[in-house]
Every structure is written in C-alpha cells, then in structure tokens.
C-alpha cells in the first residue's frame, strides 16, 4: 500500500533518513574514540546499572559525543511529527481509499475501551508519539516511518527477516495461528504468505495500528481476525491455537508483563503447539560494551522497558511457564536479526499452566 507523499513531505522524509545515516556515522566516531581511551568489555565490570552508568560517563566525555547526541536527538524529536505532517499534506487524497480498505474480509474488534494497560497508555514509544497519536497512526507508522525511514536505515530487508524467521518452525502448515503485537500487520503478511490456509488472529492494544493491519489484510484479500486486546490477556479459550507468534513485541513490555505473556501463550496453545517470538538482541547474548551501548541508546530512544525486557533469559522464562525444548538464539539472517525464542507446549500438557 503505497502512500504517495507531496513534495514537501517526501523531501522532508528523505532528509530525516539522511540525518539518521549521519547519526550512525557519528555513533561510529564515538565508538572509535571510546575504544581509543580503553573503554571496552574489560573495564565495564560490576552489575548492569553500574556498568551502564560508567559507560554513560565515559561516552559523554568523548570529543564527538555532544555532536552525535545532538544529531540523534533531532531525529528522535522530529521524525514522528514530520511523518504525521507528511501524511496530513496528502490526507484529503488518500483518506477515502484508506477508509474503504477498512471494509473487507479482515475483521477488527475494538474491545479494550478504557482498559488499555497502564504501561502502554500515552507512552511515546520510540519517541514517535504513542501508538495511537494520530487518527491514521497505523498508516503513518506502517507506510511512512517503518517503510520509508526504518526500511531505509536499518540495513537489510526488514520484511524478509520476518519471513525467514518462519523457517524455524517445525511443521509445514498450521491451521490456527495467533499473532501477538500485530501492529500494522507486517509480520501478519509474512504469516499469511507462508501459511495461506491458516486462520490468523492478531492482538494488539493499539486500535490505530490494528486499523492499518485491517487495511493491509483487506488489500491482500485475507480474512484475518484482529482484536484490540493485550497479549497477556487475550481472552481466547485454552488450547485455541497451534502456533503463537510475534515479531518485535517483547522489548516493549515491562518484565512482569513479558512473563505473563509467556504464561498466556502456554494457556492458549494446544498441547504440541509452538511459540515463536522474534525480538531485539537480549543482554545475555551481548558483551558488556554492546549491552551498555544498547542500554544507552534505548534510554535516549524512547524504549522505557528495554533494560528490564532485555535482562530476561526468555528460554528459562518459557520453561518456567511450562514450555519444553525452549531455544533462544540469533536468526540465521545476514544481520543476525532478530533474536528468536522457539518453544513447544508438551504434548502431554494439560490445558492450563504447570
């Protein structure tokens, strides 16, 4: 679904993308300066908060930091607003088609009302504005921010890495699939392409993002069933699904919620069912310097739960939730992204948790 922008919006997005590339160069300069003064894995010792504080101190003293931080800050502070402005310039022209795409085989049940989780409501994730910040936020995020900015600056094909994650699954087909954190439907598309005969359900607390997933589903002629619900309280019956899958949800969750999501996934999977979740690289797979960088960038980039989510060993957490054969590993993609959790509900398992 292409949203052609007017000249001002198009050129502005090009500019934001170029500032993003320059910011990465600035980061590389800072990283080099840090190593040059001996700040590396060997000196970053002690508990994580202390290591991160020591890193913050050292990084702020590098010659290039102030300039790098100012570039980074401009991108974070402005990208969401500029994307919304770019959309608003073309709104009159594109809204009728976007509204028409709300009708079709993909259904959307707006169920949460005022029960949107407190850790979620009004939080400006990624400093874009909260997931419901614009009346067409799903289109703004999916088609402008994700496709035109993240897609250009992430490196590698951001859609292909969703598809290749599915190679980790055990079965050639699944009849009933639930996606957690559907957002604008990028991973839902990958699931639907790989498993065209499956009934695909999706949950996400953000109604604006789900509206875009609905448009994407309808444009493809898919009959997805989307629900405005949280992954830790899906409302589905025990044993409803053969596969529960998600992409880039977990790092957006406070730790207790993340553990609750695993328990809920276990409950709604049928015995023998599979769990497949792809997300950012956790701290257990990073050296101290990489951890400190990731933590630092997360704090500046509007990732309020990053540290606590990345501190969990999801294989152990999945086992504690009752899963077996839990594996937690780097994707076999060129960028080694995402980091993947794959686990199975034992065939002998009862319908509820251990």
């Amino acid at each position: 679904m292409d949203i052609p922008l007017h000249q001002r919006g198009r050129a502005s997005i090009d500019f934001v993308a170029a500032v993003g590339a320059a910011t990465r160069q600035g980061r590389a300069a800072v990283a080099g300066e840090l190593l040059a003064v001996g700040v590396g894995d060997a000196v970053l010792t002690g508990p994580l908060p202390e290591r991160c504080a020591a890193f913050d101190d050292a990084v702020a003293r590098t010659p290039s930091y102030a300039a790098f931080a100012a570039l980074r800050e401009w991108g974070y502070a402005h990208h969401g607003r500029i994307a919304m402005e770019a959309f608003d310039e073309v709104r009159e022209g594109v809204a009728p088609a976007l509204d028409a795409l709300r009708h079709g085989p993909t259904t959307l049940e707006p169920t949460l009302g005022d029960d949107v989780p407190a850790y979620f409501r009004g939080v400006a994730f990624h400093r874009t504005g909260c997931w419901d910040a614009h009346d067409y936020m799903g289109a703004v995020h999916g088609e402008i921010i994700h496709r035109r900015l993240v897609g250009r600056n992430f490196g590698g094909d951001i859609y292909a890495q969703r598809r290749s994650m599915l190679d980790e699954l055990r079965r050639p087909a699944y009849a009933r699939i639930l996606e957690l954190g559907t957002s604008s439907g990028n991973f839902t598309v990958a699931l639907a392409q790989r498993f065209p005969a499956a009934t695909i359900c999706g949950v996400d607390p953000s109604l604006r993002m789900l509206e875009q997933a609905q448009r994407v589903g309808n444009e493809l002629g898919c009959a997805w069933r989307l629900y405005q619900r949280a992954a830790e309280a899906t409302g589905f019956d025990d044993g409803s699904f053969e596969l529960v899958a998600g992409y880039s949800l977990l790092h957006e969750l406070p730790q207790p919620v993340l553990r609750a999501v695993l328990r809920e996934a276990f409950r709604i999977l049928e015995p023998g069912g599979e769990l497949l979740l792809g997300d950012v690289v956790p701290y257990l797979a990073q050296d101290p310097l990489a951890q400190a960088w990731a933590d630092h960038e997360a704090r500046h980039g509007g990732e309020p739960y990053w540290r606590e989510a990345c501190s969990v060993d999801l294989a152990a957490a999945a086992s504690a939730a009752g899963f077996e054969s839990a594996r937690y590993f780097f994707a076999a993609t060129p960028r080694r992204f995402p980091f993947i959790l794959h686990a199975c509900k034992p065939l002998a398992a009862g319908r509820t948790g251990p």
Partner: protein
Amino acid sequence: MSGIEHGPGTATVPGTATGSTEERWVPALLTMARELWVLKDRQRVLEELLAAKGVVAPGEADAWQPDPGRQAAIDGECQAFVQRLVAEILPRAPREGRDARGAR
C-alpha cells in the same frame, strides 16, 4: 492491568542532557537545513518538469514521484548534503566530507 507492576526497569531513567553548545544550535541548524533541502528538491522537480513540458500545472510538483532509481540518486544527494553539514559539526569529520570541501 491491575496486579502487574513494573519490574526494575528504565522507564524513569532520564537521558543524559548535557546542555552543550551543540544541543542548542544543532537542532536549529538541522531544522533550517530541512527547509533548505525541501526547497532544493522542489527546485529540481520544477526544473525537470519545465524542461520536459515547458509549463508546470498547479499541483504537478507536489504529485511528482521518483522511481526507485531516481530515489536512490536523490538519497545520495541528500546524504552528501547532510554530510557537508555534519563535517562541520563532528570534530572528526568523515574523510569524504573534508576532501569534498578541500577540493572546491
């Protein structure tokens, strides 16, 4: 979401605002550079349309869309434009930036 509390997370950890000179003037510079880039891009689009048709109808410049090859070329130009700015901002400017200035 009653009953679920935050873990020992980073939700309330503030950023490390330094109040540096860069923090004050880089945003202004970039905001102005965005406007300049929009105008440079618009001028290029108008020149192209004029060269092709001799006249530009209202809305045509807004509606103009690059094909993927064109977009890649524009991205290259835009990155070079931002690069020239950044070369002035970062103490260790990227080599290409310095060389480009030196060559002129």
